[in-house]
């Protein structure tokens, strides 16, 4: 699956748009609103906040001490709000590159080995994809599935499905492709 980098900066700006929050709250809100996202470490939240503050997109908005360490909460600045709006208005480039390990692996297999090796990989990958597809479908059909979860699972399912179609058609074409690579 394509794993385009999500802009943590902009996601945090978005989470701050509803009012000031400190790092711990941001991490929790992130995990709740973006289920199945790549895990966001606390360290990454603080590092990103520091960068956003340096660039004037957020500013400290108070401190809170509840018997524990200091917690600084941050607020969106006017500049931060403008940066967020620009990001939201920008259309993402639709697949500018075919940046897939699956694709690269089959090409390399065909270069260094034979069509059988590529086939073996395609079949094993298809099996792994199918198993993951089934897991995510079970998440969706669970009686208590929340819409957050369903929509996140849908995204992954659509991409796995696209990969699976590609794996199927490439399996059919792999012998011809091997001949072309070695002609």
């Amino acid at each position: 699956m394509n794993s385009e980098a999500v802009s943590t900066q902009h996601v945090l700006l978005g989470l701050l748009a509803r009012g000031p929050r400190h790092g711990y709250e941001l991490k929790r809100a992130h995990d709740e609103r973006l289920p199945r996202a790549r895990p966001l470490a606390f360290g990454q939240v603080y590092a990103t906040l520091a960068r956003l503050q340096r660039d004037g997109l957020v500013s400290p908005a108070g401190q809170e001490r509840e018997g524990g360490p200091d917690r600084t909460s941050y607020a969106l600045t006017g500049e931060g709000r403008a940066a967020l709006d620009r990001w939201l208005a920008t259309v993402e480039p639709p697949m500018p590159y075919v940046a897939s390990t699956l694709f690269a692996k089959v090409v390399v297999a065909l270069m260094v080995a034979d069509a059988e090796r590529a086939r073996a990989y395609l079949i094993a990958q298809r099996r792994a994809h199918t198993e993951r597809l089934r897991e995510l479908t079970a998440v969706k059909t669970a009686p208590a599935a929340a819409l957050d979860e369903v929509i996140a699972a849908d995204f992954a399912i659509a991409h796995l499905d696209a990969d699976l179609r590609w794996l199927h058609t490439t399996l059919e074409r792999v012998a011809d492709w091997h001949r072309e690579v070695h002609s």
Partner: protein
Amino acid sequence: MSFLQARGVVRAYGRTPALRGVTLDVAEGEILAVTGPSGCGKSTLLHCLAGILRPDAGQVTWCGERIDEWPEAARSRLRRTEFGVLFQFGQLVAELTAAENVALPLLLAGTGRREARTAALTWLERLGVAEVADVPPGEMSGGQQQRCALARALVTEPRVLFADEPTGALDTLTGEQVLTQLVRLARQQRTTVVLVTHEPRIAAYADREVTLRDGAVDQSGLGLDAPVPGGHR
């Protein structure tokens, strides 16, 4: 005793072979997807398992009984009582309302009119289409029609539901909603499901998947016996 099985099932249409000896076991309570490219014989297999078609050779057994040897009347009774069937296009009776369509299998099985209507309304409600109870299929959306067809297939509380590309005529979202309902209800009622589809996304709703290729079970299907990646021939 096995629940539902095919043993060496062969079936041709004229001179064109559709199934070339399919052996398959369906366990009670499982949701089994039968997948494969167009023309691989998956619909024919469903028709043979459901007792709609008779194989030219081989056996189909249901709870130990050779249903392929049964006369049409007995197989037809089986389809009205123990089996439910759902096709790509709902195949509702155009002249009847939704509730009448859903009540039909019960009426054919001898249930009283009032009781059949009550059961039909319960199933339409379960599938979220109670509002079309008194509407004929021609005035319903595709999704509503397919939900009615599903209600009709489940109203007799069959032990096996056969579904042949049940979402093939629906848009993605509606198809997924119908399938989610199908799977949830099947699990609730412990209904066994044989789901024929060519789409991996749909097959993923099942517990297990069998792939057909040129009328036979594709052993390399999901790579269960696939060569180890990196292994060399």
